[in-house]
């Protein structure tokens, strides 16, 4: 489904963010990408989202080379990927419901679809009672759940979570991880970038370990080893 083919990314000649990275992600797989800060996890995800161009190599989403897609076509491909960020990136002037609805509006969904799907997804993340709360009125865990709801509301093929638990306490961290597992069980591919050792060790899913821009380990039921 996703294939990184000998991808390198060089920001400055003295340091490479990624170096000859190759691996594939299968449909409905749950892949954790681990590594220390600066190992290249976020760069890898940005290359997949076509926010950055690789210095060499190719990134495929299904049969499409994401860096050869025209600017007009790119949003359509990106709509098939839901993204969750560490800092949530919710709109502060919109309520939880409106933040999720806005993603659907941007995707061109009708009012009927929005009214039907947003409550469902809010129910899934357990925030139905806080649908009309503003981000400033929600806790970190709740904010991240709204962000996940926004990421999955358009039914993407893959959810990309870039350190989604970085700002959360252990209880909220587990709630978010459980939610991502639930989403994965419902048939969505999940790519999770994290450096949380406990999360990785308890997930017992595939782990791709990055070190100084290189893939040093790729295990089916991996552990956090650095």
């Amino acid at each position, binding site marked *: 489904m996703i294939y990184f083919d000998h991808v390198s990314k060089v920001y400055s000649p003295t340091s490479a963010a990624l170096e000859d990275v190759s691996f594939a992600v299968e449909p409905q797989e749950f892949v954790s990408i681990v590594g220390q800060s600066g190992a290249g996890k976020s760069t890898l995800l940005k290359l997949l989202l076509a926010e950055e161009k690789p210095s060499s190599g190719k990134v495929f989403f299904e049969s499409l080379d994401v860096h050869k897609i025209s600017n007009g076509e790119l949003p359509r491909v990106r709509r098939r990927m839901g993204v969750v960020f560490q800092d949530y990136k919710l709109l502060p*002037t919109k309520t939880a419901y409106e933040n999720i609805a806005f993603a659907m*509006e941007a995707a*061109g969904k*009708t*009012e009927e679809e929005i009214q039907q799907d947003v409550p469902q997804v809010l129910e899934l993340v357990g925030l139905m009672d806080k649908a009309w709360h503003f981000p400033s009125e929600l806790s970190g865990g709740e904010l991240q759940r709204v962000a996940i709801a926004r990421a999955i509301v358009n039914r993407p093929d893959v959810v990309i979570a870039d350190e989604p638990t970085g700002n959360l306490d252990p209880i909220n961290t587990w709630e978010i991880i459980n939610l991502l597992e639930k989403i994965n069980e419902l048939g969505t591919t999940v790519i999770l970038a994290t450096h949380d050792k406990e999360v990785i060790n308890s997930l017992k899913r595939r782990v791709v370990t990055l070190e100084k821009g290189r893939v040093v380990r790729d295990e089916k039921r991996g552990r956090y080893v650095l």
Partner: protein
Amino acid sequence: MEIIQLKRTVRQGFVNFWRNGWVSLATVLVMVLTLFVFGGLFFSNVLLTSALEQLEEKVDISVYFKTSAIEDEILALKSSVEKLAEVREAEYISREQALLEFEERHRENSLITQSLEELGENPLGASLNIRAQNPNQYEAISRFLESASFENIIDKINYRQNQLVIERLSQILNSSRAMLSTPSASPSTPRGTKFQSCASWARPIPISADPF
């Protein structure tokens, strides 16, 4: 699709307007005040300009002729005056017309009516109302009329007796115009050319020889 977007934009606009109530209220208030101030200024400008234009229309000087003056001489003087570049308009009022207007004006006053009947002849002289292109030119027109060649037919020119009033009014009008920089004034009219010196506040009626 565009209709849905428009609908969502409008709806979101109203929602945000309501959610930021105080800011919205303050913004609306500032806009209302601004529009009110600009509207008020514009309205005042129009009013003042209109008032100035009406005032200008009433400004002229009148030349009163002796009752002995022959009409041909007066008409010759009129045509000489009209040839002056400074003169915009010169209106001749004959003795007969002056008498008719006088009688009309004092119809209710039986004393004046009886006196006129007893007098038996027209005591009023003819007159000439002159409007200049520019208020500053009344002085020159007045000097032209005061020249010796017309001395024998002219009884009185009312410019001198109203000179102070005219000059003061001119100053006020000039100041007002400078302050306004009137957008509603006719662009084809050079600034000041419509401005008249004031010989009388109302249109003068030639009654200088009015015995009453």
